[in-house]
Structures are given as C-alpha cells and as structure tokens.
C-alpha cells in the first residue's frame, strides 16, 4: 500500500474536527468585504445577520425614470455559488420592461451570462443599471417594453403612475414611492 499508511491496523482517530464554512459561504464572505463602497442609492438588509446567504437589497435611484421610487429585492444564494448565480427576486409589483409582475428579473448575468468570476458587487450594480437604462430589447414585461419602444414619454408617465400605486393598462401596481 502507499507509504502513508502503516501496515498495522490503527484505531481510527477520534478527535473530531469541527466543520468549517462551505465553499459558497467562504466566497460570499469574501464578496461581502468588497461591498464597502456601495453607492448611497443601494442599501442592504440582513433579516438574520448570522446568515449571509439570504438578504434583502433596496435600490433608490437618484436619476432616470425611476427616480423617487424604492425597489426591494431578495437575494438567495445556494451551495452552488459561485458556480451558479444568486437567485434574485423583486418583492414588489412594478412596471418595468425587464421585471415581470411576479418579480422575476431579466438580467443576463443572473442567467445565461453568469460566470464564477462575477460577484455580488457585479449583480448589485447590474440591478441598479436596470433602473437607469430599462431595456426594451430583452422584455420580460412585454407590454412595458412595447410601451417604452413605441412612445418613451407615455412610458415615463406610466412608470410614474405605477410607482404611485396606480393602474397601468388595468393592472394595479405597488406604491414604491419614497415616503
């Protein structure tokens, strides 16, 4: 047998080592350290600070069409991180071409373009970008995308109505205005 084993049958070691953090946890801890200079428009909230794999994020855009709103997301990271992207969901019903009424988000780096070299910082900045530059080419809410493409001014009015908790095309949206 290879030399590392003695020929004698030895009693199995009994001193138990304690488990360490999983690879996903270590990587998230590392990612968190790089979130020390987030723009003022982004806030994070940890319902359970001991659990860094589940948290909430609010984006309060200070420019663009969505200025004045406060948008909430949940992040769920599983054991496959960073080989799988975090799961991100918008918890409010909002009028946005790239976010559907159930809160699913169409952001390339959360799906097909995710790479393990990306990190939480990239995802957070990518999300903020969606509010600065809503994109009609990758629609998840088709009506909103069509609206943006055909008449930008009308789309802006609809966004403002929706953020107040009003109706757009007979669909009621959540009030997301900063109080």
């Amino acid at each position, binding site marked *: 047998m290879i030399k590392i084993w003695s020929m004698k049958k030895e009693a199995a070691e009994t001193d138990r*080592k*304690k488990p360490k*953090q999983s*690879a996903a946890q270590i990587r998230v801890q590392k990612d968190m350290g790089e979130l*020390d200079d987030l723009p003022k428009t982004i806030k*994070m909230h940890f319902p359970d600070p001991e659990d*860094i794999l589940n948290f909430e994020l609010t984006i309060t855009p200070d420019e663009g069409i969505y200025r004045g709103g406060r948008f909430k997301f949940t992040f769920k990271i599983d054991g496959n991180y960073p080989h799988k992207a975090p799961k991100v969901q918008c918890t409010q019903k909002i009028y946005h071409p790239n976010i*559907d009424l159930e809160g699913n988000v169409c952001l390339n780096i959360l799906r097909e373009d995710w790479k393990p070299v990306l990190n939480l910082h990239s995802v957070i900045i990518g999300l903020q970008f969606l509010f600065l530059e809503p994109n009609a080419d990758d629609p998840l809410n*088709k009506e909103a995308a069509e609206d943006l493409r055909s008449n930008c001014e009308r789309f802006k009015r609809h966004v403002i109505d929706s953020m107040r908790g009003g109706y757009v095309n007979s669909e009621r949206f959540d009030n997301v205005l900063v109080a």
Partner: protein
Amino acid sequence: MDNEWVCITASTGSSQRPVASEDWPGRWDHLRPVLHRPGPMAHEGFTPGTPTEQFLMEQCKVLVVGAGGLGCEILKNLALSGFRDIHVIDMDTVDVSNLNRQFLFRATDVGKSKAETAAEFIMRRVPRCKVTPYFGKIQDKDMAYYAQFNVVICGLDSVEARRWMNATLVQMFDSDSPESLKPLVDGGTEGFRGQARVILPTISSCYECSMEMLTPQTVYPVCTIANTPRLPEHCIEWASTLEWPRAFPEQSLDTDNPEHLQWLFRTASERARRFNIPGVTFSLTQGVVKNIIPAIASTNAVIAAACCNEVFKLATSSGTLLDNYMMYMGNDGVYTHTFEYEKNPNCLVCGQMQLALDVHPMWTLEEWIDRLIADPSISIGKPSLRTPARSLYMQAPRALEEATRPNLAYVLGELLQEGDVVTVTDAALPVSLEIVVHLTESAATAHNKQ
C-alpha cells in the same frame, strides 16, 4: 460447483438466489502474480508478499459513495479484487428504471434501499466479503466516521455531493497524522463519456480546484423563455420556473413528485402547441427539470474499472497511480486522455491558509482582531470573521457591520468554542484564512503554523 454460481437466471426473488458460504480453493489465485512478485512497473514502495495481500484482504477499509450505476460496478469490482471490508452509502431507493444497468438489483427490490440491497447481494455472492450499508446522506456522517476508512471511492451523479465529500476529506487532513490522509477516487459518467480521477487531499489538485472546468449547465435567458420560445426546452423551463410559482405560490416544485411532473408536462405541452414547437414529451420534461443524462451501462463499467484499479493500487502499491485525471470519450470511437490537473492556489477548499491559534477566552473579539492585524506573519488590514454558524464581525456591507459591531465587545469565551474554525477574509488575502481556535488561559501572541 458451477451451478451454484449461475444465478443470473434465478432472478425471481432474493430468497431463491443461491448462497455460497465458503470460497472455493484457489479463488484468489489471480491476485498472486500481482501481489507476490516484484515488477518493474510496481510503485517504489511495493513489497511483494503476504503482508501486502493481508492488508488488502484483512485490513483495508474502503468506503463506496453511491450504489447506483457506477456504485454497482464498483462494489462488484472491489469484492472480486479481494477487498473484504467495504462500506457503502446511498440515500436512494431502487427504481424500476435502474434495473437495466444496476445489476445488483432485481424487480422485487424496487423501493428498497440501494445501499442495503447492494450490500446483501455482494455478501451473498462473495463469501467473507463484508459490506456495511448506510441508507442515508453522506452529510449525515461526521469526520470521525470518514476517518475509519483507508480510501474513499465515489460513483456519484451530483456535483454538490462530490464537492461536499471532497471538502470533508481535505479538511480532515492533519499534517501531524499521516493516517488522516484519505485518498479520494472519483468516477463520473455522462452518456458515452466518463472520467476518473485520483485526489490526494492537499497533495494533489482537489475536486474544487478544477470546478471552473465543468461545463456550465445550460441556462436559457428568462426573456426568451417568457416571450420567444423556440425549443421544447424553453417551454418546459417556462412551466417550471415561471408558471409553477405563479400557479402554486405556496408550494415549491418537487421534481420527484409524479403529479408535479405531470402538471409541468401538461403546461409545457400547451405552450408548445401555442408556439407551434414540436418535441415536448414527458421524458424530456423529466430530463430538463431533473437534469437527467442518459446512462450507458458500458461507460459505467469502463469508468468503474479504472477507479477500482486505482483503489487496488492505492491499497497494494502494486502499480503507479493515475496522475491524476483520465477522461474517456466513447461517443465518437474510443478515446482516452490522461493529464494532471494542477492545484489551484486560490482554491476555496484546499488553497486556503490554515493556522492553529491559541486564543485567550477573556480577550474581547476586538482585542483578538487587533492582535491578528498586528501579527506580521498574517499581514491583514481589515479582516471579516465568521464561523459556519455565525457572523463574528463583518467589515462590510454597512448593514452587516452595524449588526455585528456589538460582538466586538464580547469575550472570545462567549463567542467561540474549542476547535471552532473561523474563516477570515481580507482584501490582502487571495481568498481566506482559516483559524482553528484553541481556547487557553495561557494564550500568548505566538502561534503555530499548520
């Protein structure tokens, strides 16, 4: 004598299978030429003779993880190679669809534990081979359990389970105790392709080192799924990721539940009809949501044979080990290629610096962090510290810093327990540093590098 061993036809029920209680004379003669003679190809540490054979047959304890397609082959190969103390773990039960290739199971075994059924079968066929089954998850067992084995061989179908097994074996290694080095032989198959690798934890590249080489799972853009489906897979993804949560907001999808699968199949079929997309079938639905890849019995046989050869060589030193990765491609002719995966210095599992540190239970967390910063051999500036269960102190983001700041005033005796592993991250570290905490009243500033 011969009749006793013809049992393939006697497959109606386990009670009717013949039982052999003793080896026939000379049964293990095939091992002698390999184990009792020196040879130019043998490993330098090889000692031909009886002690090596005795180690193989009487002492060596092997753990087989997984009793499925690869597992059945592995168990059979090990038992017929002279290993007599085999343990097997599998959390699954026998399904009727396994019977075409998982030859230790019969129709009457459907629904029973794979590990238990396979163990019984092997013990019935190979006298004096003891197979100890565990019907459950690998995560149920702790390091003390894994420490009893000489080698671990995995025939798994999940990346997650491989990562867990690999991380556990790497963490178990202790440089003061050579016995704690548990070689891991890992096999994997996917249709006509397969791979075998040998991992010597902390010595050679580990499973996690090469995770980035894995083919990423196909992920479709959510906007394509939502608006412009072109493939049957798009319709199935639509049903499972978008429609299921809409229809059953309270219930999460269980891909093992046949009713859930039926619902997905119906929903995906309707969508496919609407977009005129052919090809949505029940088995494709199952394949997409459960990520099933067709299994080929002969691929399993090839890979299991390669893996068992490595385990045999590990146990006997009769040959040089695979260094350290072999891939087999059977889909376009027959081709194999062997190369050495290098260790990844930034590997999240085996590339992390580990220190055993004495800490005083009366130091506050803040004092300890100051000492870590002041330690020139560590050289970190703004460390964040966590254990698997808690955030001790996180420098960022702000919300976590605020939530963990009160911990700074607590003494370590309250925050930590003996042997806790603290993960330290810092901008100056490639990834992290692991500190194994030793609480002691006599803690000074000195520490021992592992």
